[in-house]
């Protein structure tokens, strides 16, 4: 279980302190598929980074599986089973897809094992396994490899920061399938996805609406989705384009 207690995050700005997250409280039960949504600038990505330890909260407490992890580093949290997929996947000159999956799985990963993770995200393994994770890969390919690195870790809590950002509509359909598959798999894994996409909201067990640094609404999909449909932070891709 993940508990966020009175979490605040401030940054210094020209006109004093700017509150990105304000005294936020949130509890996430195990093995749930949670989607956090809300208007841009509402603090969603910051919150995901606070949970992973990438950003340090100014105030409050984070409890993961009964343990206070507030002061723990990114590495310590990763070793406890927290995974994080970046909104903008990082590129590496020289590191191959196989290298990255090997680091993620923390073992000498065989080609066939690595291939399994790649096929889970819909990539043909033999085309990618020895490719460098560099600018030669498209945004959609990088995104899927980013997701594969989280799958390879077999984490207890997987955080995905706007997986749909920067990918084309064709890749988006594949992405939805990956999340549906993850949702339906029997693994003991809690999934938190930051997303604006109605199709991702549709597969959630629970939806959290974040705005102005606070939880505005939290509840089951059936309860929350009808309330937020049509709002600009929960539009389908075509509507957002029009």
């Amino acid at each position, binding site marked *: 279980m993940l508990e966020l207690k009175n979490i605040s995050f401030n940054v210094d700005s020209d006109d004093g302190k700017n509150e990105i997250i304000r005294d936020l409280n949130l509890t996430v039960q195990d093995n749930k598929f949670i989607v956090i949504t809300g208007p841009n600038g509402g603090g969603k990505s910051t919150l995901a980074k606070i949970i992973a330890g*990438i950003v340090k909260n100014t105030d409050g407490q984070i409890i993961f599986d009964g343990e206070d992890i507030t002061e723990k580093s990114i*590495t310590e949290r990763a070793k406890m089973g927290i995974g994080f997929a970046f909104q903008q996947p990082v590129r*590496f*000159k020289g590191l191959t897809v196989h290298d990255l999956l090997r*680091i993620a799985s923390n073992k000498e990963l065989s080609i066939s094992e690595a291939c399994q993770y790649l096929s889970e995200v819909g990539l043909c393994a033999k085309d990618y396994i020895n490719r460098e994770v560099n600018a030669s890969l498209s945004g959609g390919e990088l995104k899927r490899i980013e997701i594969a690195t989280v799958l390879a870790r077999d984490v207890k809590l997987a955080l995905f920061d706007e997986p749909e950002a920067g990918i084309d509509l064709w890749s988006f359909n594949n992405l939805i399938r990956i999340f549906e598959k993850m949702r339906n798999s029997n693994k003991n894994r809690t999934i938190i996805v930051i997303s604006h996409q109605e199709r991702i909201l549709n597969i959630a067990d629970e939806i959290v609406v974040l705005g102005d640094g606070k939880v505005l609404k939290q509840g089951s999909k059936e309860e929350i989705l009808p309330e937020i449909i049509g709002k600009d932070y929960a539009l389908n891709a075509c509507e957002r384009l029009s």
Partner: protein
Amino acid sequence: MKEMDAVQKRLLKEVADLHDIPEGAYNFRANGESVDRRSTKNIEIESKTDKSGIDIRIKSGTKNESVHIPVVLSASGIKETVYNDFFIGDDCDVLIVAGCGIDNCGTQDSEHDGIHRFFVGKNSKIRYVEKHYGSGDGSGKRILDPVTELYLDEGSTAELEMVQIKGVDSTQRTTKAELKKDAKLIVHERLMTHGEQQAISVYKVDLNEEGSSADVVSRSVARDSSYQKLDLCVKGNAPCSGHTECDSIIMDNGRILAVPSLEANDIDAALVHEAAIGKIAGDQLIKLMTLGLTEAEAEEQIINGFLK
């Protein structure tokens, strides 16, 4: 063959990946003298008569054969300049493995300067691997100042892999190439310096005839207080194509000066250079830390990948 000691064998493994006598032609040089040599039907190795060094003659049509010419220095205070000339006939396809390992536990400087010249015949293809390595905890410096000259005849290809990852205190490497019609030069240089080391690497490539091409890529890492200067110059003197790339990571108090330069002397010379120097990107470290690595482990993985 004179027996090599354990230090010499270790150096040999580092610079030539050799545990034992290789197949094909070879010449082993240790502490200033040739200790073993083998010529084959197609590859003849002979000592020079006017100066220190060897001539390697490879018959036309020789394919899928290799020459190993590693050098090891395990005694302190040796300074030598060795001239090795490779005469490669037409239509060959050969692998040449050179390299020098210095172990200096003494107080005097040890230096090996290998002057290698390659005369590559028409339509021949060579792959040249040169690794430099230093070890030993003496105060004497380990110095390597190699010169590589390549003369590529029509339709020939030379692929060079130049590696210096560890332990060489001072190096000034010069690589020159002259290319004829449709000749092709590919260079991958990998360099890492640490401590107070200094490394200067100069490339001068002349694309002299139509259809010639060069692709020179240098990846380097400067750690601690080390200094590197990379000077890559490609001249296009005919309709040709050239590309150079200096890609460097600096760490600690490391310093790097990259000087890529292009000179086009023909309207149809297409030349491109790229240069980038910077520290390891913070988001790369963070990504690997979210996969469970510590910051130091993440740094090591990024550098290993970069120099792979």
